[in-house]
């Protein structure tokens, strides 16, 4: 079965990691990507504009009920949780989860619930535990769990916590994550 959605979570150090990962994906990439990068509640559209410079894929700050399209990158907006429904996104201003809004757990858990084994979860550099629970749910629902090698992470706390808690499918240096995603999405026939 084809992978339709890749959900990515990161906090401290995420900007440069995302730059590398998204920058290595080709224009005809066959899955959609949704990203939670922890950020300040009043930060503006700067993150999306910044990342757009490094990728050929169109980057969106998600607006409520936006459709999920293959080959697009969707960023959780500041001060909202990003949730995956089947085929589109919803936003919420529910309480922060693990002190974070947007929360990685919220994105990953909702993606697992809507897309089951057609989703790949990626945990990158990060300084707290938000994302561990989500990746664990995603794995339990049949999705693929990939974690950045803590030795290549600007902040290894989150990758280490994820590896300790979950039987992940792959631990990869940052530079190897995009090639693996391309391989996984191609191997299943798009």
């Amino acid at each position, binding site marked *: 079965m084809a992978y339709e959605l890749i959900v990515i979570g990161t906090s401290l150090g995420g900007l440069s990691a995302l730059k590398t990962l998204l920058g290595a994906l080709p224009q005809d990439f066959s899955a959609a990507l949704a990203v939670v990068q922890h950020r300040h509640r009043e930060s503006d559209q700067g993150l999306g504009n910044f990342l757009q410079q490094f990728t050929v894929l169109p980057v969106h700050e998600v*607006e409520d009920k936006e459709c999920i399209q293959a080959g697009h990158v969707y960023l959780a907006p500041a001060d*909202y949780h990003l949730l995956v429904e089947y085929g589109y996104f919803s*936003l*919420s201003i529910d309480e922060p989860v693990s002190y974070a809004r947007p929360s990685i757990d919220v994105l990953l858990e*909702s993606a697992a619930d809507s897309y089951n084994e057609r989703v790949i979860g990626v945990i990158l550099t990060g300084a707290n535990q938000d994302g561990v629970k989500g990746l664990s749910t995603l794995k339990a629902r049949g999705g693929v769990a990939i974690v950045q090698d803590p030795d290549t992470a600007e902040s290894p706390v989150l990758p280490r916590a994820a590896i300790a808690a979950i039987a992940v499918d792959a631990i990869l240096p940052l530079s190897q994550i995009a090639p693996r995603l391309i391989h996984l999405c191609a191997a299943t026939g798009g």
Partner: protein
Amino acid sequence: MLATILKPDDLDVHLLIEGLYHRYGYDFRNYAPASLKRRIQSFLRTEQIATVAELQAQVLTDRACAERLLLGLTVNTTAMFRDPSFYVAFRQQVVPLLRTYPFLRIWHAGCSTGQEVYSMAILLQEEGLYHRCRIYATDANDRVLQIARQGIYPYKQMQDYTQLYLKAGGQRTFSEYYTAKYNNVILRPALRERVVFGEHNLVTDGSFNEFNVIICRNVLIYFNPTLQNQVHGLFYNSLCKFGILGLGKQETIRFTKYETAYDDLAKAEKLYRRRN
């Protein structure tokens, strides 16, 4: 018609929501599923109930539990001058248009505990328009309306609110708008004078007046596309010609049936103007 086959855990949620509707008339059937499920799970933890199926059985026989669930399923995140740039845009883009009317009716739909209603009252007062306005502030939830009517909020929030007030373009000293007592503040009674608080459910209730401005921020995000279209129909039919619609920062008219019924007034702040 073919039946939609649901996964077992989705089926439990579906039955719970149907039960709430048919037993009590609480209609969550067209809420956006992902956040609804999270809130049900969080309610289970609070009530120490193991499964959705157990909750369903309890809710159908225990009205108090159903009412707690109702509160648990509705969101009440708010603050005075939340998203200050919205108020800046409102001052710059909307206020000049409102000056042309002798009398203004404003509907704040989903007002929760009232902070954003009083923020608008302050803005209108500073712009010299307040005496011409009537603000209808509604919510489906009677408990939050009780708080809203009182206009009493914890003192410890004032530091945050003061900063937001200044970023929102406030022209006075924020402390002029409240009196502090013990750990609370009460807002100046003048800010309530032209506000009518009332119960109104966007899912089940219809239009009740014609308005120059409708504000509904971060409420529709909890609805699925079907229900969003229905509520946008209600708003469209409740706005006068060239009336103003204000949504939350990441909400949009774009993915609804009413996309072409409005012009952008302040695109980034989701202020729209009804075409005709």
